[in-house]
């Protein structure tokens, strides 16, 4: 007896079934009977669809049947079996068509296990989705303020600008920088600074529309994306209101703080195609303009500004290159006692040997250096160069004062004093009082208290301080009250007109009086004629500097000039 006679399909733990080409069930084994709850008698001759859920019937018609016709078989299709009690059971069915009998042979098994696997995979997928979305949130969010971070902003901008190409959307982009935030951090600590940033984030959010985007760009910088078409006046008006909101009084941990913000804004679209990064830079530049214009305000970006900034940038690069390749030189203009002819010293004045344009006076290139690190680098070079010259002259037996002009921005640099003392340490034999800093009275000085303390520290080091162009600034008198200086330099404009203008003469007399009252020397600038010198001497101002005495000259010419000067009787005008 062979094994095939021992076992029938009823013995197998799998459903076996045969259907004809009209879907009628011709055969089903015990497994089907047990699994479906229908007796074999009920199943025979019945429509296969009795056993299939509606959805499974669609699967049959749209997938299983076409596959069977095409390929003769269809493997492992997950269907739902409807049992006699109207419940559904998951099954996996494989079917094979038998061409000779035009029948379909089925094997059917339970899909409980694979369904369990499916559920677990679905659960895993859900968890993974949550994890991924959490990771996305973390990588896109600034943890301190909960606002989108710089990466999220960049992504958002890219998307929006791509969208714009399709449907012509418009927006405004504002760059916000807090005023005086560093001071808050320095004076009250970072925890207060953090609270301030959170407050700013809240104030921005509560004063903007829900479809605007606010991102923390970094530090105390925020970027706002304002949806919609804006005119210049409209965007300026809305943002000025926002600036007002930000500067409302603020208390953190019982500490009342003063806060304000400067904003720059640019509009999109623009006449020329711009990149997202360029747009942010435009808003940033406009913000910088708002800072320069006095902070706590909004400044609109305009293309002309950008052009002038570009020009300034290229000028700056040229100046950096000039500094690196030693194209600057100090000229020296003597200061003398106009009564005795004694040479007191010289003021160092910078010149640029431009490779193409020849010798250039400072008025042509200093403006580009204003408030720049290159300007500070040049200021350092001037100091070092002048000290070096001073030492050379001393070694040659020429005992002079040398003064240099110091820019307000340089003076306020946190490292100024340190740099200066390091430089001075390189000239140990030099008496410090031979060196003089000329501070321009009109230079933009933001923190006057800080400048006073720097200048006083310089004086304590022995360096002389003079106030340049005295009388042209607005706070001359209060300067004199709070700041002890060695010399007042009377501005050339008063000297120039003293012979004809009684007003200028009166001011001149007054300045000379102040100098005497405060116990400082007084030097007149712009002494151009014998008459000027004589009248100044009469008024009590003996020290002078100007074309009448000598023009600025290269260092190597100074000694020859001094010798010639000494040989001549003063005043020379009696001889000319």
């Amino acid at each position, binding site marked *: 007896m062979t094994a095939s006679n021992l076992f029938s399909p009823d013995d197998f733990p799998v459903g076996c079934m045969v259907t004809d080409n009209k879907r009628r069930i011709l055969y089903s084994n015990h497994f089907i009977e047990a699994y479906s709850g229908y007796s074999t008698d009920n199943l025979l001759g019945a429509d296969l669809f009795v056993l299939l859920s509606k959805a499974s019937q669609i*699967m049959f018609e749209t997938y299983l049947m076409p596959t069977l*016709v095409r390929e003769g078989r269809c493997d492992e299709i*997950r*269907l739902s079996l409807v049992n006699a009690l109207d419940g559904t059971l998951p099954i996996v069915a494989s079917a094979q068509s038998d061409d000779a009998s035009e029948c379909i042979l089925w094997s059917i098994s339970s899909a409980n296990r694979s*369904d369990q696997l499916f559920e677990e995979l679905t659960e895993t997928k859900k968890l993974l989705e949550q994890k991924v979305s959490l990771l996305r949130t973390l990588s896109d969010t600034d943890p301190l303020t909960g606002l989108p971070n710089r990466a999220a902003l960049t992504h958002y901008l890219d998307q929006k600008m791509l969208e714009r190409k399709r449907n012509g959307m418009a927006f405004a982009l504002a760059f916000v920088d807090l005023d005086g935030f560093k001071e808050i951090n320095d004076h009250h600590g970072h925890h207060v600074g953090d609270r301030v940033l959170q407050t700013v984030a809240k104030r921005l959010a509560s004063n903007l529309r829900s479809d605007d985007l606010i991102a923390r760009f970094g530090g105390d910088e925020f970027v706002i994306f304002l949806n919609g078409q804006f005119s210049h006046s409209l965007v300026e008006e809305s943002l000025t209101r926002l600036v007002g909101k930000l500067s409302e009084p603020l208390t953190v941990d019982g500490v009342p703080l003063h806060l304000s913000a400067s904003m720059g804004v640019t509009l999109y679209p623009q006449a020329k195609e711009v990149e997202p990064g360029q747009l942010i830079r435009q808003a940033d530049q406009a913000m910088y303009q708002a800072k320069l214009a006095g902070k706590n305000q909004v400044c609109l970006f305009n293309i002309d500004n950008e052009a002038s900034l570009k020009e300034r940038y290229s000028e700056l690069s040229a100046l950096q290159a000039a500094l690196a390749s030693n194209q600057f030189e100090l000229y020296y203009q003597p200061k003398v006692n106009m009564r005795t002819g004694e040479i007191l010293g010289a003021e160092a004045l910078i010149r640029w040997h431009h490779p193409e344009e020849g010798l250039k006076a400072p008025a042509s290139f200093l403006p580009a250096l204003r408030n720049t690190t290159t300007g500070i680098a040049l200021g350092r070079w001037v100091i070092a160069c002048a000290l070096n010259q001073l030492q050379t002259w001393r070694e040659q037996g020429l005992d002079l004062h040398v003064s240099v002009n110091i820019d307000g921005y340089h003076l306020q640099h946190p490292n100024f004093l340190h740099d200066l003392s390091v430089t001075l340490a390189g000239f140990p034999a030099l008496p410090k009082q031979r060196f003089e800093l000329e501070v321009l009275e009109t230079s933009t000085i933001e923190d006057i208290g800080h400048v006073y303390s720097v200048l006083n520290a310089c004086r304590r080091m022995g360096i002389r301080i003079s106030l340049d162009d005295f009388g042209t600034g607005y706070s001359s008198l209060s300067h004199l009250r709070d700041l002890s200086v060695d010399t007042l330099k009377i501005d050339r404009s008063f000297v120039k007109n003293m012979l004809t203008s009684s007003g200028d003469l009166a001011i001149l007399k007054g300045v000379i009086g102040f100098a005497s009252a405060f116990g400082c020397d007084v030097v007149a600038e712009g002494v151009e004629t014998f008459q000027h010198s004589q009248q100044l001497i009469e008024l009590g101002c003996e020290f002078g500097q100007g074309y009448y005495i000598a023009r600025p000259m290269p260092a190597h010419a100074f000694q020859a000039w001094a010798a010639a000067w000494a040989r001549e009787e003063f005043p020379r005008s009696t001889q000319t």
Partner: protein
Amino acid sequence: MLLKEEIVARNNVTVVGSGDKTLMLAHGFGCDQQVWQHLIPYLEKDYTLVLFDYVGSGKSQISSFSESRYRTLEGYAKDVSEICQALNLDQVHFMGHSVSGMIGLLASIDHPELFASHLMLCPSPCFLDAPPDYYGGFERADLEELLDLMDRNYIGWADYLAPLVMGPESAELLIGELADSFCSTDPVVAKIFAKATFFSDYRHKLAEAKHPAVILQSERDTLANPKVGRYMHAHMPGSTLRLLASEGHCLHMTQPELVAQEVNAWLRY
């Protein structure tokens, strides 16, 4: 406007047979143009047969798939009229199986100049029941279960999960890389076609029919039962209803000879 070659490649258009009359054969949900292979031998001698795959099915360019276009049948109808325009066809007799009957109707309402008549094989304008006037054969729960079964039958979990991990930007790229094979293997694309097919209701469009149509109705068909055929006939002007002594929804595969007879009868009117 895409070039002819681009459309032909996009929809895997093939033209077989010869004859003055052009018969366009459009597959239904879950299939592609290969479902017509048993019918072609009966028709290719007498007609110019235009076959194609909808974008997202068969050997179409799946990179052309976009959810916004193909989440309604109008998107598929655009495929049809664009193919006709690209091949410079007019007077097209359109044979659509199942959901394609409605897709062809939508195309012919928008571009009546391209079509001559419809042969609707087991069509349905709406698979959902809308009692008491209309019985499409299914309740919403049945169709929800269908989507679930599609999920469970889809084995490419790695492909399914990859876009999730790689981010939404790369999804289109991945769709493009999926293998072209029988009955679109991309579950996202297949489910969008399933939803467009089984959850839509285009009964209101029947009255706008501009061409004669023959409804080939199977006597026993779960997907498009005889009530559906009668409803369509009643609501579609210029329609003829032919109730065929047959079982099932895929007559073109199971009884091609019978279908060919009906085609000949209709086109030689």
